[in-house]
């Protein structure tokens, strides 16, 4: 057996990674259905490398110190740490069912939603030790923090609810119905916004009481929402309608709708003003010019999901939209 192991190890050694940094910046696109990560040269908008993962990665997040990009592999029960400048794999850590993940604004906690296992895990960000596990019903999908890191809000997709967890006491605060199949969550102007995928609207929720204050219509299958780097525009991807909609982030009034077919999902913002959007069912990323409404496409792998742009190496100006 040991001989077989050595033989296999020698015969199929992993090809060495190129550790060059791309001058024009690099983008990482997670191919959830293809068990891989596409590395794209942002200047040429071409895929330059594909990093294999174990089973089924979905989302990714930059560490607070900017030194690692964490990629959650749900079916592989593994967290991959990548160098955000080169794509080199730094380490692989066993983590149960890491679906959606985000660091708290104070950098202290990493919250990981276990969508298939119905759990919300809060890790100590520095040590990656599990601090608290909240069992939930059911399918925790997306998450967002209060700016003071006191609370994390989690959408529970299969039970049509939003849950709030107090991170100071590590206790549940409330769980309330917010609309059909809630997905994307975002803190904006003292409120929590939830994209209800089973409807055509966002629910605006009071973060203290969980009360739904109003609905904001965006399009069929409102799925995910992002704030522009200047914080002036709220962007919403509508899964069933195949549209991306911009709204005034203060008034929540619609500005413009863009047709992005193929199941628009995650989004990130390039320094030139373009918006990169993964198209889940088209094996493509759309690079949208919001001024003209036209978009270019980049071929990637199956079911592209999480997306991260690193325009100029390890710059503190990198905006993480997740």
């Amino acid at each position, binding site marked *: 057996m040991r001989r077989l*192991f050595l033989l*296999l*190890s020698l*015969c*199929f*050694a*992993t*090809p060495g990674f190129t550790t060059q940094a791309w001058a024009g910046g690099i983008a990482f696109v997670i191919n959830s*259905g*293809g*068990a891989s990560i596409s590395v794209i040269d942002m200047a040429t908008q071409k895929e330059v490398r594909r990093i*294999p993962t*174990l*089973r*089924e990665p979905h989302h990714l997040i930059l560490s607070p110190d900017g030194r690692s990009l964490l990629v959650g592999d*749900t*079916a*592989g*029960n593994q967290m991959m740490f990548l160098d955000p400048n080169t794509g080199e794999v730094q380490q692989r850590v*066993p*983590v*149960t*069912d890491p679906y959606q993940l985000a660091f708290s604004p104070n950098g202290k906690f990493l919250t990981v939603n*276990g969508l*298939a*296992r119905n759990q919300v895990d809060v890790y100590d960000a520095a040590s990656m030790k599990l601090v608290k596990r909240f069992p939930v019903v059911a*399918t925790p999908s997306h998450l967002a923090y209060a700016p003071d890191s006191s609370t994390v809000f989690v959408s529970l*997709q*299969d039970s049509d609810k939003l849950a709030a967890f107090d991170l100071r006491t590590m206790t549940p605060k409330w769980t309330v119905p917010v609309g*059909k*199949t809630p997905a994307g969550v975002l803190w904006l102007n003292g409120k929590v916004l939830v994209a209800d*995928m*089973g409807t055509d609207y966002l629910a605006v929720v009071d973060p203290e009481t969980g009360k739904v204050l109003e609905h904001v219509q965006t399009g*069929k*299958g409102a799925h995910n929402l992002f704030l522009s780097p200047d914080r002036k525009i709220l962007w919403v991807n509508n*899964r*069933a309608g*195949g549209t991306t909609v911009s709204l005034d982030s203060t008034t929540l009034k619609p500005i413009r709708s863009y047709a992005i*077919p*193929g*199941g628009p999902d995650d989004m990130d913002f390039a320094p030139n003003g373009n918006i990169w959007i993964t198209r*889940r*069912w*088209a*094996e*493509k990323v759309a690079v949208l010019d919001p001024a003209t409404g036209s978009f270019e496409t980049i*071929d990637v792998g*199956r*079911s592209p999901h999480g997306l991260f742009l690193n325009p100029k190496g390890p710059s503190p100006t990198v905006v993480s939209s997740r």
Partner: protein
Amino acid sequence: MGDPFDLAAGWLQEHLLIPALYQFGLMNWEDVSYGWALFALYGAAQVAVTFAVCLPLEHWRPVEHWPDSKAVLVDVLYTLLSRVGILPFVTYVLFYRAQVSVTGWMTDQGWVPPTLEGLFPALLGQQVLTFVLYAIILDFADYVRHWLAHQFRWWWALHSLHHAQRQMTFWSDDRNHVLDDLIAFVWFGVIALLIGVPPLQFPLLVLLLRFLESLSHANVRLSFGWLGDRLLISPRFHRAHHGVLGAGDRSCNYGSVLPWWDMLFDTADFSRDYVPTGDPSGEEALATGTWGQQQMAGLRRFTRAFRRSHVPHGV
């Protein structure tokens, strides 16, 4: 240009499935529906490729001629249900959710679920090679499952539905009792937990393996030669397994794709030449009944296996 199957599944998802899910308030199934669309398309391709290759072969050198082929029609239904219809959907939903949940629990206990890539890290990124190794292991697991299905009276009672067909064609691969399918599903679910089978990463290779399994049932005089028959299972080799003298616990040639396990465990028989197929010990409905009649007959035989001390177990 992307994978044509992915793009076709994406088109189905965007234009048919998502509008329907949205309309009926079922958008929480949208990931599952895409997975099903992929399974169904690959299944349809399997059926189409198998049909295009095997039908001419069966016309070219048939083993048997039948006055009518009505009994084959129900096998067509089995194939469509198994490869394009509800079964891929159930498999995708149950298998995926169960695998993530159980392996996640294992990780929590401090035991990282094993994978071939974990055992041999150099395999990461070697997708085709990894798949081939997984395929060999799974083929062995199927050999063991199949052999056991012939050893236990109650299990044979279910599995005999597969053997009852006297008009065996390439359509016969999927004719199984639903309980037999369920056992196989659990069997492979456990194996998957032990070695971490990657879901839907290598669909084209799965398509090739399923094609070989269908081909092995074809009504055609086809051998791969002395050496070829010892590398891959041919219609001649597998027909001996379905022979009337091979029903029950005295069968031979249990392998699905690779004959290696039969050779290794001395269950291979390369001497039988294009024998008649069927199971004389079973009731007629198992062979010529409708889908429902066959399922009921299988269930009756299954329950009898527990009631009686002796029931026909092969011939």
